[in-house]
């Protein structure tokens, strides 16, 4: 057992080594190693199908056939004690369409902490409604909301109970620029004011600039990790997008040389 009190800030929120996930007979993640520091926003970027969602599911503990080391908040991923400490938003909004927004939140709040007093739970629900700017829609059926609103309900569920780690799978897909800006402000305030750790995936490269740290993924492997400006400097690119493309080309070239020398 690790000694938390002596080294809480240094210990990363997520630490992976030789992380491999197999789906069917196909490896989706191939021996990844990376860390997600605490209290920061880590962006997980890469093209669709590169394994971002699988990686997030592994961190949350819902992915089967995971091998290698994966420690989350000092415990092996999927440990029962982590279930109240992680907030998870799947790509498709996972809420009940035939319940109102408030009924959805009330239910998930009751599952999360049934021991909490009713008043505290209501307060928690009001707080997350305000966080995602849906207070005015609290009594609408989730199924009648627009796609963007529904995905914010899903995000609100993940914010219940102030989790230490938030795993958000493409939370800004399909949102207009104003909402996207507001959500990124929320993410920053969660990290900076409440000390939460965020792991946010996206395939939109312009969102990369808003993260403290990036994990660039391609075809089940981590191409690079570091701060956005560090990645830009390293590759001599103006934007993260160009940096990403250069890294992809480098990796492809390296693979070709390896093949020809073999």
């Amino acid at each position, binding site marked *: 057992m690790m000694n938390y009190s002596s080294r809480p800030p240094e210990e990363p929120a997520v630490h992976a080594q030789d992380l491999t996930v197999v*789906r*069917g007979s196909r490896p989706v993640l191939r021996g990844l190693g990376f860390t997600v520091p605490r209290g920061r926003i880590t962006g997980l970027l890469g093209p669709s199908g590169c394994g971002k969602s699988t990686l997030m599911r592994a961190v*949350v*503990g*819902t*992915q*089967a*056939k*995971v091998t290698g080391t994966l420690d989350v908040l000092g415990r092996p991923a*999927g440990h*029962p004690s982590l*279930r*109240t400490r*992680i907030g*998870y938003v*799947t790509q*498709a*909004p*996972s*809420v*009940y*369409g*035939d*319940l109102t927004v408030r*009924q959805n939140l009330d*239910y*998930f709040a*009751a*599952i*999360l902490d*049934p*021991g909490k007093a009713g008043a505290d739970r209501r307060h928690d629900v009001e707080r997350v409604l305000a966080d995602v700017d849906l207070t005015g829609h609290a009594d609408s*059926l989730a199924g009648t909301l627009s796609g963007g609103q529904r995905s914010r309900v899903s995000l609100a*569920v993940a914010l219940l109970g102030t989790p230490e780690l938030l795993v958000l799978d493409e939370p800004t897909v399909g949102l207009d620029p104003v909402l996207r800006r507001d959500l990124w402000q929320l993410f920053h305030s969660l990290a900076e004011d409440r000390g939460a750790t965020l792991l946010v995936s996206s395939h939109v490269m312009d969102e990369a600039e808003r993260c403290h740290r990036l994990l660039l993924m391609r075809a089940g492997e981590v191409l690079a990790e570091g701060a956005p400006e560090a990645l830009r400097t390293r590759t001599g690119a103006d934007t993260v997008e160009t940096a990403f493309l250069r890294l992809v080309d480098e990796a492809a070239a390296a693979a070709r040389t390896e093949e020809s020398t073999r």
Partner: protein
Amino acid sequence: MTAAGALSLPRTTATAARVLRQLRHDPRTIALMLLVPCVMLFLLRYVFDASARTFDTIGASLLGIFPLITMFLVTSIATLRERTSGTLERLLAMPLGKGDLIAGYALAFGAVAVVQSALATGLAVWFLDLDVIGSPWLLLLVALLDALLGTALGLFVSAFAASEFQAVQFMPAVIFPQLLLCGLFTPRDAMHPVLEAISDALPMSYAVDAMNEVLRHADLTTAFVRDITVVAGCALLVLIVGAATLKRRTA
């Protein structure tokens, strides 16, 4: 991990309340669930207008079959939706035990089944002159156990259905053979011995037998106790197997 097996009462009741709340937003389904059995019984009463005895046996059997079929359909679709919408994955990533979820569903649909059966039994006994020698309360008890069996079977098959289309097709696959062999159309001992042996292994046969025991006997018979024990045992067994189909980690 020991806590995962134990039931948490507040989480179970929260789940049951949530399922009922979902139903409340769907009044048409509630109306169909509650009224269709009554309309069928009413229809049947006048189909057998000339032979009240036939209505007695078939009517009593149907009081046991309706809750089983309704709850089977509702549960298989509801849990399939839970699996496909991602809410199941979310719940299992939260501190919810599988038992809490299943017991919550059983509690909610059991409550609906009580209302449905009370309406159907009341209509049959008081308005359609269904001639029951035993207590109508026992009819209600059997109906409730049948509903739980339906919930259990629905939950179980939802694990094998990839879409609502497939889930609905499990109805003829799972329910119809039992319907044919349960003694509704012909007494079970008059069937071909092979079919009789198969019907001995199907839970719906015991549901119908139990109803007929109440129909014919004033007091609790040993056959009745055996029948309801088999139905309850099957429901419990299928619920446990159903729980095993809920996986926290999926591919």
